[in-house]
């Protein structure tokens, strides 16, 4: 799998699986219509509890990241308008504020932070470009 799970992290494993798959979609490692491994196959491959994988898949389906077609498998869903967009933008704002606090304690200026942001974004896009080819 393209992502790793750290069982010793304080983040629950099913959330790490959700995060990993969402990240893969965002980076273009998998694209709409791609088939994901079954719960059993993913559990075996990553040596994780099948119930945990099933829980992650249920949550991903609820978030409309994946669609489960009975008897055929699990697929990456088409990107569509996200229902709770406004609320999730709110969460992003909080995350950015957290970054600003962190930067302050590291004695970074806002410009330095902005520069860092740009370099991370371009690194990301370069990686995504590779995946798209």
């Amino acid at each position, binding site marked *: 799998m393209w992502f790793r799970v750290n069982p*010793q*992290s304080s983040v629950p*494993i099913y959330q790490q699986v959700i995060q990993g798959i969402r990240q893969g979609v965002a980076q273009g490692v998998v694209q709409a219509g791609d088939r994901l491994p079954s719960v*059993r196959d993913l*559990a*075996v491959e990553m040596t*994780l*509890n*099948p*119930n945990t994988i099933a829980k992650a898949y249920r949550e991903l389906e609820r978030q409309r990241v994946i669609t489960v077609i009975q008897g055929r498998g699990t697929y990456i869903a088409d990107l569509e308008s996200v229902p709770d967009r406004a609320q999730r933008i709110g969460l992003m704002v909080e995350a950015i504020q957290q970054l600003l606090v962190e930067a302050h304690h590291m004695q970074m200026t806002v410009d330095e932070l902005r520069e860092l942001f740009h370099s991370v974004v371009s690194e990301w896009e370069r990686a995504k470009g590779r995946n798209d080819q």
Partner: protein
Amino acid sequence: MTSSLVTVENLDKTFRGQKVLTRIDWAIPEGSIYGLIGSNGSGKTTLCRLILGILWPDSGLVAVGGVPLTLESGRARQQMYYVGADSRLGPGFRIAEWARYEELMYEQWNAARFQKLLKAFELEPSQRIGELSYGTKTQLQIALALSASPKLLILDEPTNGLDLVVKRQVLQLILDVVSEDHTTVIFISHLIEDVERLCDQVALLHRGQMLIDGPVDTVKKTFTRVQGFFPEGATPRVKDSLREVSPEWSGRMAAGVARGTPDGLVEQFRSAGALYVDVVDMDLAEVVRRLLEAEGYKRETFHAGTL
């Protein structure tokens, strides 16, 4: 919520006057992989043997599939398979002979699966069991256990003596069968990382008492770490107002551990003058360490990750 496959109620067990298990209440939900952890001599294996019905409790009740165990409980054991360090394999038997015995014994024996597992573990049916290494014997036991298609699989430190590559393979084969059959599993291990990876439920035994049990994510929330940033550092005034918490200081950060809800501790940090306060979840090893420390368990060699 699914129903319980195994129910243990108010269980007591004594070995020659010595209390081994005290008032154990435990329920194992059907389809779960239940991690059972505890230090040596905490009563894990005894608890499993009580569930198997080969040990009998002094008082209390064990029920499997809703049926209480009695003196002779072979019928219940049709659905249970125990893999432990003291294996039942006869050293004089060849692998094929022992497999024949278990095939005659288990109604749900899956011969095709056994052949597949033998191949995966590179075992020859003509090999004599007494000539196998400890690790190979463990693999054979797991192959037999998975082929018996039990409803409850009890794995007592199943990866002891296996190297890392084989251990991963063994765990993967177990997971494959468990997801196919929806087997309920009791997974005893002193490797907390394995428990975190494989189990959705976890219980901690200590000196014959169940300190905690339930879903891993719930157990992890038993304790939370509260961290506060104090701009002026550990001044006497701050120290005084955090007297009850006795936090650990690292620079200007103070960290305390809360059992249950962290709200009270957060409030204390705030009123002591913390600039910002973070609530951080703990990993399972840390939770276990805290629980054991609360019971007065301390060892020099103790470190997170193993028991």
